[in-house]
């Protein structure tokens, strides 16, 4: 197992392998998202209670789930970076943070906009939206801490420790916000219990979620590749790569 980890520790190996994977991921994300969007917006039936405002679920749920899993990814990268000192994990965590923050903001915005027709006001202090707001502040804290240090290496380590502290506190925050105010409707779709929506409604939702995760993978992968190029700019293989892509274009 150690060889396998060590092989992945070298950015060059990761870069070569990801060159083939990245285009597929981008293509998969594009297809899934367009099919899911068309199906969800145009063909899925409207909800009997919320009518067409229900279609916001097809963007709210994927972005909320991305916000959560991105935080989990950052915590895993933090452990890998602090314990095995693999720089790749630090790069992935650094790259994933802005994506997670933007997904949290998107989930908050779409949740709030969805609230107007259903609850009558755009911001309601309901448990899930409040936890999402706190998660957004956690993201800002981690990003700000990373860029507060002069040297990237110490910034990466400090941000890793804060992500671990954050991930330990997340369930406690959710529980206490839940205790404080439970208003939000129960989760409309969870992998364990059967979806409470008819099939024609949750299939597009599933497509949108898979598409969102594919996009998440593609963005994180490509931005990691850029960060590797930026950090290893003195390495010969980077220079060789850049010069021959440059010649191919002219």
């Amino acid at each position: 197992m150690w060889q396998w980890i060590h092989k992945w520790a070298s950015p060059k190996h990761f870069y070569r392998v990801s060159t083939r994977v990245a285009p597929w991921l981008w293509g998969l994300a594009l297809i899934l998202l367009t099919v899911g969007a068309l199906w969800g917006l145009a063909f899925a039936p409207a909800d009997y209670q919320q009518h067409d405002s229900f279609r916001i679920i097809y963007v709210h749920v994927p972005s909320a789930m991305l916000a959560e899993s991105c935080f989990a990814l950052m915590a895993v990268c933090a452990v890998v970076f602090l314990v095995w000192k693999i720089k790749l994990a630090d790069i992935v965590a650094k790259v994933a943070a802005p994506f997670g923050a933007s997904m949290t903001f998107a989930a908050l915005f779409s949740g709030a906009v969805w609230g107007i027709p259903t609850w009558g006001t755009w911001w309601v202090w309901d448990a899930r939206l409040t936890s999402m707001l706190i998660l957004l502040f956690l993201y800002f804290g981690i990003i700000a801490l990373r860029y507060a240090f002069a040297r990237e290496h110490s910034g990466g380590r400090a941000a890793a420790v804060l992500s671990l502290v954050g991930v330990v506190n997340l369930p406690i925050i959710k529980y206490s916000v839940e205790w404080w105010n439970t208003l939000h409707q129960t989760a409309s779709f969870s992998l364990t219990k059967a979806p409470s929506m008819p099939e024609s409604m949750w299939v597009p939702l599933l497509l949108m979620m898979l598409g969102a995760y594919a996009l998440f993978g593609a963005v994180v992968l490509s931005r990691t590749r850029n960060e590797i190029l930026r950090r290893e700019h003195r390495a010969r293989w980077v220079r060789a790569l850049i010069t021959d892509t440059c010649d191919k274009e002219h």
Partner: protein
Amino acid sequence: MACGPYWTFVVKCRARERRARRDDPARDNERQVGLRVQLEGRQLGCERDERWLFQALEFSIEDGDLCRVEGPNGSGKTSLIKMLTGQLEPSEGAVLWQGKPLPKARAAFHGALVYSGHLSGVKEALTPLENLSWYQAIGIDDDARSVAARWQALDAVGLKGFEDIPVAQLSAGQRRRVGLARLHLLNRPLWILDEPFTAIDREGVAALEHLVAEHCHKGGAAIVTTHHAFSSVAFTRRIGLDGHGGHHVL
């Protein structure tokens, strides 16, 4: 009352410590032979901002060694010193104390080390005596001779009569001498001094040189980084760093 739970916690540590001592044979012979200095660097490497300051550095410090670390500014001298004290994890290789890698032998190693860095390590609001008594406490010195030792240490650095004046009112040179009084106070086999001669007058320098020489003569070891050549004693070992990855060890 607030620290009630902590005493129970500390007592539990004592029980664990006694158990550790009972079934750890190595600990017994260590006490008979007296602490032998054995600090080795194995294939040490230090990388900063994707650049190697030094690589594959091999050396070994034994009893009676006086080692000088030299090199231009920014050549990684302080990083090497921080690796030797266990503050900085080497990017490559390992530092061994009596055969055991540092992170595993941290308590034993720190029990045998006195480190004097760029910062004086002295609290300005406290008096020299209070500073030294705190050092004895965190240095786990036996209680019997502690009061006498403090006076004797202050006398040795020529601060007799200044014992109960807050350090803030002493001059910069006197402040550093309070820091250096630790060398007299805690009789530790290994001294690591980083630029010890800054802000010290001529006869202070001579006194410190004599002290280090006598320490090495008595079987201790010292690692010193300084631009000032020792006049009265020869270095038994030199580690030169050129800052571009190269080094030479005598």
